[in-house]
C-alpha cells in the first residue's frame, strides 16, 4: 500500500517531538478528503504545526484540526472525542489513531513512590487516558468490515525490559502493551500495533539525560516516524504485535 487512503487520523501529543514528526509523515500519506486531528495541550504549537502542514498540503485535500486538550483529564478526552465526531466525514477508508502522548515521570528509587496521588496522576495520563480515548473513538467510528481501523500504541523497549529507577515508565508502558493486546484479541477489524520508536532527539530524551545522567545515541524523530508509517502501509504484522525501531 502506498497511501493511508482517505483517512481520519488522530495523533495525540502532536505538538512536539515524535508526535509532530508523525503529523508530517501522515499528512504526506493521506488521500484527498482526509481529516487530521492533532491533539496536545499547547494550542499555539499545534497551530504552528497546522500552518507547516498546510505549506506542503492543499487545504482542499486535507482538513487539519487542532484540539487543545489535556489528556490527563476526562474533559480533555471527551473534548477530543467530541471534535472527532464533529469532524467525521462519511466517506472514509481508514481510521488511524496514534496514541503517542505520554510522559517520563520521575526517574527515582522504587522506595520514593509512596504518594498514591502522584502515582495515580501518572497512570491517569499514561494509561487510563489512552484506554478511554481509544474506546471513545471506537464508538465514534464503529468497526465494520469495509473500514480499516488502525490503532498504534507508542511503546518502548521498557514495556518489556525492567530498568532500575524507571518504575513509573516501565509500569505504564507494560500496562499499555497488555491493554492494546487485549484490544487486538477482541476486535478482528482493528489492527493494533505497539511500536517502540527507539531513542530520539526529543525533549523527553533531554529529560532522561537530566534525570538519569544517561545519554543515549539519538535518532531524528522523522527517521523513526517514517519506519512506523512503512509498517502501517505494509500492514504485514499480526494485530497486537510489539515492534521495535531496531527490529524493522
Amino acid at each position, binding site marked *: 500500500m502506498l497511501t493511508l487512503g482517505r483517512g481520519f487520523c488522530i495523533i495525540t501529543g502532536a505538538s512536539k517531538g515524535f508526535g509532530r514528526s508523525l503529523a508530517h509523515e501522515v499528512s504526506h500519506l493521506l488521500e484527498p478528503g482526509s481529516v487530521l486531528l492533532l491533539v496536545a495541550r499547547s494550542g499555539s504549537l499545534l497551530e504552528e504545526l497546522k500552518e507547516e502542514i498546510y505549506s506542503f498540503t492543499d487545504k482542499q485535500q486535507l482538513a487539519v484540526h487542532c484540539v487543545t486538550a489535556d489528556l490527563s483529564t476526562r474533559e480533555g478526552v471527551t473534548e477530543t472525542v467530541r471534535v472527532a465526531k464533529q469532524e467525521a466525514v462519511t466517506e472514509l477508508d481508514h481510521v488511524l489513531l496514534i496514541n503517542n502522548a505520554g510522559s517520563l515521570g520521575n526517574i527515582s528509587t522504587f522506595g520514593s513512590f*509512596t504518594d498514591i496521588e502522584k502515582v495515580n496522576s501518572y497512570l491517569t495520563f499514561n494509561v487510563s487516558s489512552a484506554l478511554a480515548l481509544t*474506546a471513545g473513538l471506537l464508538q465514534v467510528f464503529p468497526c465494520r468490515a469495509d473500514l480499516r481501523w488502525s490503532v498504534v500504541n507508542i511503546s518502548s523497549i521498557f514495556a518489556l525490559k525492567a530498568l532500575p529507577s524507571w518504575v513509573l515508565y516501565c*509500569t505504564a508502558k507494560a500496562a499499555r502493551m497488555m491493554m492494546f*493486546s487485549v484490544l487486538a484479541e477482541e476486535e478482528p477489524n482493528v489492527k493494533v500495533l505497539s511500536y517502540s520508536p527507539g531513542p530520539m532527539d526529543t525533549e523527553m530524551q533531554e529529560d532522561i539525560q537530566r534525570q538519569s545522567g544517561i545519554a543515549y545515541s539519538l535518532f531524528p524523530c522523522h527517521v523513526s516516524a517514517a519506519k512506523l508509517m512503512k509498517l502501517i502501509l505494509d500492514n504485514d504484522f499480526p494485530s*497486537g504485535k510489539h515492534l521495535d525501531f531496531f527490529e524493522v
Partner: protein
Amino acid sequence: MSIAAGTDLGRALCIITGASRGFGQAVARHLSQRVSPGSAFVLAARSGNDLRSVRAELLQEYAGLLVECVEADLAHAEGQARVISAAKQCFSADMDHVILVNNAASLGDVSRYTRDFTNMAEVDSYLSLNVSSCLCLTASTLEAFPQRPGLRRTVVNVSSLCAVQPFPSWVLYCTGKAARDMMFRVLAEEEPDVRVLNYAPGPMDTDIYASAKSRTADPNIRRSFTAMWDQGQVLTCDESCTKLMKLLLDDSYVSGAHIDVYDV
C-alpha cells in the same frame, strides 16, 4: 541467600492485603504455620468483621500470635498510612524477616470490552487500587523496614496468567496484572537484597472466580471458566498456597520471576 532455608520463614512480620477472604485468608493461615514464635501479622482489607474472623482463626491455632487487623481502603493515602503504622508497631528488633504479600485486587468489569471503557474515572479507580496502591504500599514498607544485616525482606505480588496473556473482555484485569508484574521486575532489578516473587496462583475457588464465570462477556473465556469448574480443575486456595509456601521456603526462585502454580 536464605538464613533458615527450607525449615521455616523465621521470626517474621507478615503484611497481607486482601486478607479477609479467598487467597489472602489462605496465605495468612499458611504463613502462620511456617513462621517462628515471635512473629506478627498485619492483615489489611476493607471488611473489619471478616478480618477479625480470620484473626480468630489464626489465634485458635497459635494463641500467642500477634495479629493486627487494619480495616482500610488501600487506594487512599490514609488507609496506606494505617497499614504501615500497624506494621511498625508490630515489628520488633529481633525479627529477621519482613514478608509483604500484595494480594488485594479486583476483577474489574469483565462484562464489557475495551471499546466500552470510555469512562476515565472507572479506569482511574481500577488502576488506583490494583496498581498504584500496590506500588505505594510496597515502597512504604521497604522504606519503613530498610535493608540491614540479619533482616530478610520478601515481597510477593499475587499475579495471574492474565499478566502475560491477554483475555478478551478482561482489559482492566490484564492491564493491572501486567503493570504489577513489571513494577515488581523493576524492584527486583533495583534491590537485589529484596526477594521479589510474581506468583500466579492459578484458577481458585474464590469470589473473583465466581464473578469471572458468571459475568465474562467473551463466550470462549466464559465457557472455559465454566468447564474448569465443572471438570474439577479449579484449585482450592489451600492447594495454591501450599505451592506458594514451597517457593518461599525453598527461596531459590530468581528474584522478579513470574512463577505460575503449575510451574511448581
